[in-house]
């Protein structure tokens, strides 16, 4: 269906916003409200090379640990041993964060989130690859765009747990930059010695997917030549007790797309990628598309028919000039909440043939919230590089709503095109599309 768009889009290039035809919206979106889709036509983008990437999660530090667990169906979840008060749930905790000190010169930035950021940056030679890019382009020609939902709120929580006798922050907590959402971005800019545009995206669980979109725009406009993107979220009381208050946390390890699923397991993670123009790395995997859209439905419940998720998917496929049938693997948002998985399974069923393999990897890492976008972008890139479709861990009794696309066990197969879905509170949806170097639609 999107192939059609491609054919007539060519003639419309360079024209100003073209409304989607109502008939088209109707067919693509089902019988939900469709009076408002006068969006500009999405133009195909020039792909970008992903010249480096890394992730650190409950599965371990770096790519090899992620790949090994994904290929062998090994979960990183454990019983909650983190929250400041008892809470019966499972979590995806990263080992070694407590010992991962930030560089001495950046001691003012010390907090769990920035420690995890620094630990994550050390993996897979990522810091060295950024150093090479810095030499090539100049420090102010590389954007730094990071997603987070928690930032270092865990440190602000700690400050409130041990206020001074006068009711103010203790002396060691009087570090204003740590008590702000941009803590992660500003720390990482200092740690990587980057002086280009620097922005923290915080749209809950889609945060570190949307940074790829921001990066593509800045590179396309020539504001920068490259971008470091990624995200870091860490366990803290805010998210553990907050999601618990919403009755969205399972007492057991999360079971995405399982008939008996009863909530999420919260995790923490760090992930990063370096994006450059294709010419400098013709053999690197590529970011070929991205899509973003809003549900306009509810702050903490997805649109019942997945409207925003579907718009984001269509937007990503249009930008990649791809028909859905060319997608080999899609890493689903798949949180194991009743509603998300129901809506997302229906979207997969109506959008993709059985040859498109689909799975959630939240059963391995937990839901890493603001870091989920980059962690699962990394899963998509690993799928392309290593020909691995991770099995949908936790789905031992598959929800009958899930169609033929669902990969319940890990599979080995060639993956040329992989998508990653990320949906957040506030009805904030993003979809990323990656492809093997040399792949043409």
């Amino acid at each position: 269906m999107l192939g059609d768009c491609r054919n007539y889009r060519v003639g419309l290039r360079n024209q100003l916003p073209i409304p989607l035809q109502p008939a088209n919206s109707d067919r693509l979106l089902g019988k939900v409200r469709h009076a408002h889709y006068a969006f500009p036509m999405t133009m195909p983008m020039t792909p970008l090379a992903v010249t480096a990437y890394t992730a650190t999660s409950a599965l371990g530090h770096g790519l090899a640990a992620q790949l090994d667990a994904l290929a062998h169906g090994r979960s990183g979840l454990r019983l909650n041993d983190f929250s400041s008060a008892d809470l019966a749930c499972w979590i995806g905790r990263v080992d070694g964060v407590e010992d991962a000190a930030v560089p001495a010169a950046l001691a003012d930035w010390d907090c769990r989130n920035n420690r995890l950021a620094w630990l994550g940056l050390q993996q897979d030679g990522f810091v060295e690859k950024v150093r090479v890019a810095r030499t090539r382009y100049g420090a102010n020609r590389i954007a730094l765009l990071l997603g987070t939902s928690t930032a270092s709120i865990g440190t602000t929580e700690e400050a409130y747990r041990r206020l001074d006798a006068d009711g103010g922050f203790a002396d060691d907590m009087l570090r204003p930059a740590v008590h702000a959402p941009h803590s992660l971005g500003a720390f990482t800019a200092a740690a990587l010695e980057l002086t280009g545009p620097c922005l923290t995206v915080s749209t809950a669980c889609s945060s570190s997917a949307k940074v790829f979109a921001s990066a593509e725009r800045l590179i396309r406009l020539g504001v920068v030549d490259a971008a470091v993107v990624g995200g870091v979220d860490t366990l803290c009381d805010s998210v553990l007790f907050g999601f618990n208050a919403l009755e969205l946390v399972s007492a057991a390890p999360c079971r995405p797309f399982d008939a008996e699923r009863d909530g999420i397991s919260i995790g923490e993670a760090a992930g990063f990628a370096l994006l450059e123009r294709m010419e400098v790395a013709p053999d690197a995997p590529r970011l070929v598309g991205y899509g973003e859209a809003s549900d306009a439905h509810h702050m903490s419940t997805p649109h019942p028919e997945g409207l925003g998720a579907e718009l984001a998917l269509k937007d990503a496929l249009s930008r990649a000039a791809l028909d859905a049938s060319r997608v080999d693997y899609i890493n689903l948002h798949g949180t194991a909440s009743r509603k998300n998985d129901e809506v997302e399974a229906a979207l997969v069923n109506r959008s993709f043939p059985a040859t498109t393999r689909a799975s959630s990897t939240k059963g391995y890492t937990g839901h890493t919230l603001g870091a989920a976008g980059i962690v699962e972008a990394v899963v998509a890139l690993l799928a392309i590089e290593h020909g691995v479709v991770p099995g949908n861990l936790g789905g031992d009794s598959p929800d009958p709503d899930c169609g033929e696309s669902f990969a319940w066990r890990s599979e080995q197969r060639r993956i040329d095109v992989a998508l990653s879905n990320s949906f957040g509170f506030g009805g904030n949806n993003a979809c990323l599309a990656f492809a093997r170097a040399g792949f043409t639609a």
Partner: protein
Amino acid sequence: MSKLRVWVEGIGLWSPHLVDFGALRQVLAGDVPAPPPKRPAATTLSPNERRRAPEGVLLAVEVAGQAVSMSARDPSILSCVFSSSHGDQPITDYMCATLAQAPAELSPIRFHNSVHNAPVGYWTIATGCHAPSTAVAAQRASFGAGLLEAVSQVLTGQRPVLLVCSDTAGSGPLGEVTHCSESFAVALVLAPVAGPSSVATLDLQVLAGDTDDPLPEPLAQWRRGNPSATSLALLALLNQGSGRCHLAASTGLELQVDVVRIDKELAE
């Protein structure tokens, strides 16, 4: 890199001293405008949502509504970039205080209102907007960095974008370290081409630098009291008609913005 040009079609503004952009123009003309009501009206929200919405949402929705109304654009198709240095500080203060004392009693609604994208979430729900929406932060550079994100969306997507930058006043022990003495919010509707609602062009360049443009009082004092009020350098120029200002985009990087108001450009 060539200059980045966008057209301003709408301007929204709210602080405890300024009910809208017109009030700022009065201040700059030497008048004393009537102070706004204690809470922003935020009439874009339904009465129910307005009652429930936290202060950070009311603030952002108020200025967004003003700017979109001035632009005469349909809000349901505007891409949204909502920026804030600190998010909703009264909610963060509530969350941290509750977690320190009785974590199991945390309010689920205040938790979902605590996400940085709560204002843009409420806005898209209120306006039926399915366009892309984002929420960003960059400390004192939140307005400049948000403007760069918005402009990049305008120019690459060839579509109008709503930019909001807002910060509530500090609250509780957290207020001691954020140094936000009062709330401030600004909004702009930005478009890729001239249209019937265009009021000014902005030509932006991204340059190394850390220029602190001088501002007259009381604007300089307001700017010190809230990160979102760094936008006053640009707002003063939009009042004046033309000129150049500088907005921090990150540490050591700034946007140099050349403003030309449309009526003045036509007159020349």
